[in-house]
């Protein structure tokens, strides 16, 4: 209940406050979003596996987002930012699909 409320509050805050993403941060926003999606799918799958832990969820969410952005940031500084962000998207994308497949197996037994 609290969790659902928190999510609604988050959406409302994000939409209503229009937090202006600083220009230097904007290239990392898509990467952060993909990392966040990966964490969310992982959390749902862990819940279905029966081993969900909210602390792990939050810590992995924050660290995934930060690390993904940091990797791309480093890549930008070293001249391989584009390739590294592609790499991050590929790896996280594979994980998202794998977790989604696991969730599907749980839900539909197929």
């Amino acid at each position, binding site marked *: 209940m*609290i*969790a*659902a*409320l*928190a*999510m*609604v*509050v*988050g*959406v*409302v*805050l*994000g*939409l209503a406050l*229009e*937090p202006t*993403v600083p220009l230097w941060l*904007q290239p990392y*926003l*898509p990467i*952060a*979003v993909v990392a*966040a999606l990966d*964490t*969310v799918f*992982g*959390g749902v*799958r*862990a819940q279905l*596996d*029966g*081993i*969900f*832990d*909210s*602390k*792990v*969820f*939050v*810590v*992995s*969410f*924050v660290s995934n*987002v930060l690390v993904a952005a940091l990797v791309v940031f480093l890549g930008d500084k070293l001249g391989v930012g584009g390739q590294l962000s592609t790499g991050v998207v590929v*790896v996280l994308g*594979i*994980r998202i699909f*794998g*977790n989604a497949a*696991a969730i599907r197996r749980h839900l539909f037994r197929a």
Partner: protein
Amino acid sequence: MSTSLLNDLLSDHLDKGYAEVAARRAGRTAGGEMPHARRSGRLWLALGLLLTALLLAAAFRATTTQAPESARASQALVHDVQVGTATSDWLKRRAEDLSARLVRERDAVLATSKTGDRVTRQLQQVEAAAALVPVRGPGITVELGDAVAGQLDPATGDRITGTPEDSGRLQDRDLQSVVNALWAAGAEAVSINRERLAPTTAIRAAGEAILVDLFPLTSPYIIEAIGNPDTLLPRFADSGAARRYQSLVGVYGIRFGVQRSPDLQLRAATGTEPQYAHLLDETNAGPATGGAQGGQPSSAGSPSVPPGGGP
């Protein structure tokens, strides 16, 4: 090593942290979960979901505001172009006004003597030929237009042969041949879409646009020609260019029409800059040309004034 990395990537999708915590919890399963731990867990979850929702909403917001930004940029560019066009139009009008005033002043000065009268008449003829003054009079109007995109054949319902992108689009040489036919038919002054054609005005293509006197024009092209309509119209209608475009109307669907116009007003062409001749520099010319002409730099501006000769 690398294969195990790839294997991990392809097989282990779940964060290892969940399994570790579950194992640890299973190790001290004896006591069961305390209510305190459950409450903090729920708070953690709420925090995580809040952050997730905030991030996703912010990203959504950033993406939706970014799109209008690019649109805004192009709108600003369009606005700049419009302002620039308006400024250039205004300057053009002002140049016309000033040159008209110049002509009036000059005529007033020249009208004081008989020689001046003759010079004025000569000047007027020369200026009319050079399209430097606005003119009005009867004539004919020729309308040329690109084939309309997606025009359908009334009989079959199919698209008319030839896509408008290539064959139905008028080129610079189409305008050139029509204008040349008008000159040949006896037109005394010609303008395309209000752009007066001077003897040195170029009609040429730049990309997809047709430039007349360096101003881009778009279809339809209204070509106005002043001349005796009774001879101009039949002569032009009989010319090769007119007959060719008349036949192209049926083939490609371009627009082509000729009509009499009792009263046409053509504005002056933008002044042509001499390409090789240039004005004598006031400071240098003074001593070089000798004392006879010194102190009369303005005489350099009217080189066509012939020396005396009146009675």
